[in-house]
C-alpha cells in the first residue's frame, strides 16, 4: 500500500500539495481571489492579503481548508444537494 503524502508532498489523486497554502484565483479578467464573507459564504474579491483568501489541502480530511478557520473546509450546502459553496466544519 502506498504511503500517504505528508506535508509539502503532492497528493496525486487531488492534485494539491499537502498543507501548502495557496490562493484560488478566478481567470475572469479581474483575476479576483476566492474569499470568505459573512463568516461562511464564498465569493470572489480583490486581493487583500487577509487569511480569508488563503487555502490549504488537508490530507487527513481530504478537504480544502481555510487558513482563517482551520477547522472548516470548502463544502457544498445541504450535503452537496445545493449549488452554493460555503465553509463548514470538516465532516467528510
Amino acid at each position, binding site marked *: 500500500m502506498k504511503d500517504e503524502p505528508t506535508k509539502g508532498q503532492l497528493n496525486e489523486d487531488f492534485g*494539491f*500539495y499537502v498543507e*501548502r*497554502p*495557496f*490562493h*484560488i*484565483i*478566478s*481567470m*475572469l*479578467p*479581474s483575476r*479576483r481571489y*476566492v474569499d470568505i*464573507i459573512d463568516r461562511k*459564504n*464564498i*465569493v*470572489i*474579491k*480583490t*486581493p*487583500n*492579503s487577509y487569511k480569508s483568501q*488563503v487555502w490549504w489541502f488537508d490530507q487527513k480530511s481530504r478537504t480544502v481548508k481555510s487558513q482563517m478557520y482551520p477547522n472548516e473546509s470548502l463544502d*457544498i450546502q445541504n450535503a*452537496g444537494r445545493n*449549488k*452554493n*459553496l460555503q465553509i463548514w466544519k470538516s465532516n467528510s
Partner: protein
Amino acid sequence: MNIQDGKVLDVEGNRDAEGTNVCVWKKHNGLNQRWRVVYLDEMKAEPSEGLDEDSGLYRNRPFYMQSRMPERRVATVSGSNLVIKKMVKDNVSQLFYFDHLTRTIKSQQFKGKSMDIQSSGRGRSVQIWNTNARWW
C-alpha cells in the same frame, strides 16, 4: 471538481464583480469556471517600497495631492467625499499612499478605503470607499 456529481467551482452568472458568489455548476469550460491555484511560496513577492513603474507612484509612501490653482489647496477626505482644503501638516485626512497589493490610492485616515469613482465608475465624483477593485 466534485467527485460525486462532476460539478465544478463556478463564478455565479459569469459576473466578474466584487463579491460575486461562487457556486458549483455543471462543467462547461467557460472562463467563469477556470481557476489558478497559486501557492503562496511561489508567488513573486512584490516589493513593499520604492517606485511602482506602472503607476508612477512610490509604494506606501504618504503624499499630498495639491491643486495647482493659486491657493495650492490639497485633496482632503470629508466624510466619504474628497474636497480641497488648506494644507495642515500631518493631517491624516490629507495624506494618501499607493497600496501595491490592491493597486489603489488609499487614505491614511481610513486604510481599508481607497479613492473610488462613484457609482462603480459611472459617476463623475471621486470619493473614498471600501477597497473593492484595482485601477488596472
